[in-house]
């Protein structure tokens, strides 16, 4: 009976997991295409400062979980070693989502410089027991060269 319940849960998790993954990826692709075209630089030195009227700290964050089935499958692959594309996909989606939110926050900027990512696993303390949940913060400094958008920056 318990095994049946577990199996049912796995099947449901697999279906909803794949569905939400596909939906999330599709929505990321659409929003990436629609988001303001702002170059994102990871460098902090030699950033062109001519004409810069204002700068502002911008950031975006997201928390994404792995579904039950994929977590089990990932654990299984982990036994044999090799690429675990299941977890790669989750981290990729989370980072892209965070970067996207940061770009949206920087609307009107000419570029974003010195971008950094910060990653943490929320249920680290119970690793193995529950599926990993990854929290990502992407942050950087938005540079405004255009007067109108520089004046429109909300003050801290």
């Amino acid at each position: 009976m318990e095994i049946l319940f577990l199996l049912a849960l796995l099947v449901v998790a697999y279906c909803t997991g794949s569905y939400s993954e596909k939906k999330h990826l599709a929505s990321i692709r659409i929003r990436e295409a629609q988001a303001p075209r702002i170059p994102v630089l990871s460098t902090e030195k030699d950033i062109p400062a001519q004409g810069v009227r204002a700068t502002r700290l911008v950031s975006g964050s997201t928390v994404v979980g792995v579904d039950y089935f994929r977590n089990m499958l990932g654990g299984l692959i982990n036994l044999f070693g090799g690429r675990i594309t299941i977890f790669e996909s989750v981290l990729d989606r989370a980072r892209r989502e965070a970067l996207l939110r940061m770009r949206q926050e920087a609307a009107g900027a000419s570029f974003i410089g010195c971008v950094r990512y910060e990653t943490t696993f929320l249920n680290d303390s119970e690793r193995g027991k529950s599926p990993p949940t990854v929290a990502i913060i992407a942050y950087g400094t938005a540079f405004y060269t255009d007067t109108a958008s520089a004046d429109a920056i909300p003050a801290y």
Partner: protein
Amino acid sequence: MILSTLETVPNHRIVEHYGIVNGSTVRSKHFGRDLMAGIKNTFGGELKGYTELLNESRAEAMSRMQQQAQQAGANAIINIRFSTSSVAAGAAEIYVYGTAVRVEPTA
């Protein structure tokens, strides 16, 4: 207050350093939302409740850092970095730090 992840503020020069300033928060979602996130976690996808929590904690940590800088008499914080760690299940620490400085626009 000017906040930047860079070591300088464009078209400004640093006239005084006030040292490192920081802010931190450890937050956890209340039981109801944690339960919902747990259920959602079984099926994967974005955990909106936790994203919201992350945003709130980040804003709080940043405002604490800014308060410190203001008390020191700074008008900018440069080289800002975020750091996160998970303290317990569903609770995360957000730590933000930077260097408080006073800047003047260069003519």
